[in-house]
């Protein structure tokens, strides 16, 4: 399916287009000359050893800090992000490794955190609990997740928590979702759930960047795999044209480039 997926989206204009992205922190060259193009509905696996530059790249796209060199085009326009809100406002959402959920709140409250629905009650502006729960339930159904909007996040499984974090990205009709190690600390069954959540996003034409160390996940769900090493992009090819062995060799440097 990954091959056909790539073919179908190849014609579409890229949602994200990075050209020559570089980043220095003082004397440290964290990124150098990275080009990356992602089209709507494409799932791209981003792999590399610790310190390869994955997180720096993701944080540049997320607007945590600007690149030292290079340009970012999003949806055909050049963009300059200075704060995370800048990237969010154009349609980039990040699912953080620790998911950024408040355990003491319900699933619905977490989905809408910072973007609460409100209604006027006379002169008062109060939370629209019903509206938020209904919308959250819709989103969970869309993601086919067994998650109840009014349950507390602290009582939830890892897969359900992922669903809550991903549902949050669906609120804003994001065009690109970046997921940082979503399957790192959850059970096998929950990994399946998360991968199917990624399929749901793809079906809706959302581009996904998946950062993972887990080779099976990358090959199960991604159209392309991008390998980073020492701040440079070493490979960028359809998963159909590569193998876990080749990717491993690229990550470790046993194979220089592909």
């Amino acid at each position, binding site marked *: 399916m990954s091959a056909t997926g790539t073919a179908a989206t190849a014609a579409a204009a890229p949602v994200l287009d990075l050209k020559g992205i570089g980043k220095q922190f003082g004397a440290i060259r964290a990124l150098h000359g990275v080009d990356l193009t992602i089209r709507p509905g494409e799932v791209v696996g981003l792999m590399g050893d610790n310190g390869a530059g994955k997180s720096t790249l993701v944080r540049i796209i997320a607007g945590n800090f600007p690149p030292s060199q290079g340009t970012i085009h999003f949806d055909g326009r050049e963009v300059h992000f200075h704060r*995370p*809100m800048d990237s*969010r406002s154009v349609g980039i959402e*990040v699912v*953080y490794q*620790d*998911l*950024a*959920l*408040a*355990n*003491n*709140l*319900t699933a619905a*409250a*977490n989905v809408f*955190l*910072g*973007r*609460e629905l*409100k209604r006027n009650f006379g002169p*008062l*502006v*109060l*939370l629209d*609990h*019903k509206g938020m*729960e209904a919308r959250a*339930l819709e989103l*969970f*159904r869309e993601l*086919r*997740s*067994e998650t*109840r909007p*009014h*349950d*507390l996040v602290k*009582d939830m*499984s890892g897969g*359900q928590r992922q669903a809550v974090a991903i549902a*949050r990205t669906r609120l804003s009709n994001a065009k690109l979702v970046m997921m940082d190690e979503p399957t790192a600390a959850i059970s096998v069954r929950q990994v399946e759930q998360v991968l199917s959540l990624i399929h749901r996003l793809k079906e809706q034409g959302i581009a996904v960047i998946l950062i993972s160390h887990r080779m099976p996940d990358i090959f199960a769900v991604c159209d392309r795999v991008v390998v980073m090493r020492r701040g440079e992009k070493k490979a960028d090819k359809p998963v159909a044209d590569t193998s876990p062995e080749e990717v491993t060799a690229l990550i470790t440097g046993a194979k220089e480039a592909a």
Partner: protein
Amino acid sequence: MSVPSETSPASPDVTFTNVGAARWWHRGVFASQTAYVTLALLALIVVMSFASPYFLTEGNLQNVAKNFSFIAIATLGITFVIITGGIDLSVGSLMCFAAMITSMVMTSLSTPGMPLSSLFVHLAADGKTVVANVPGLILIVSVLAGLVVSLIVGLINGVCVALLGLSPFVTTLGMLSIVRGLGYVISNGKGSFPGGPDADYFYALTQGDVYGVPAPFIYLILLALLMALVLHHTTFGRHVFAIGGNEKAAELTGVSVPRVKIEVYVVGALAAGLQGIIISGWLGSAPANMATSYELNVIAAAVIGGANLAGGIGGPLGAIVGCVLLEVIRNGLVLAQVNSYWQQTLVGVIIIAAVLVDRIRARLL
């Protein structure tokens, strides 16, 4: 929270096969420390009513209601701070300072010859009696003065914690000392008395009652209802809980964490200031050592009532229940003619017991 149902209309392809819904008694307020501390309180009241014929008399109940109202308003305020995972040790000092400012402003504005007093009072024909130009105006201005000072203290606390990144404990420990010291400075250690033509209104509003219900108790109930509304039905309240649950998450999702934090310290300080002003009406003065170490009673009441010092949990019901429990125990020991020195020891035991029982409950359920 709305009542969830087992038959919530999930789409046909979503089944809640292995994900059971929590039963109602495992959820919400029923599963909280507040719930069983309330039960313990009710049990204690029943025991007390059998143990002492005086406990349920109108006079004693009024007494209890008044006494716990004296720390309960400040407890409501500090509960906001505690829910965000913060702490405010300056509330005791601030109670005293706000009360002092209020009574000093009131006295000063009511004394002919003092600055600005000509705007508020004039002498009657006999040349001695001081008459207010607008009855009640001095009261309003002086109470506002006390609250404005509280607001400023709360702002400083909040800015130090939220913008400068100082620890809440250290910041408010410093503020405890600063504010208490300022109280001694401005009063020269003597304290102050509310005086002037509006003092009678002041006493009526602080130690009066309505059909036998003490005025502070009425303020408490109104403020508690307001707090419940704010915590559970406004964006601000939602963000207060979110910051206590996971500050990083709140920040990443776009919650303005510094602003909310500053606001909770201001709310806590305003509540403490109002509390102090009310206490001074009841005492008839604001001595410089007033409300010393009350911050510990206030924090103890909040914690017994179920507010979690780690953040994320708390509410007005718990704050009030904690205060009532402390006062009923104090009152009970007095009625039982137990040496009152035992009171403090018992309060300590209850603080630990309440938290311990919650921990055990969390393990068992």
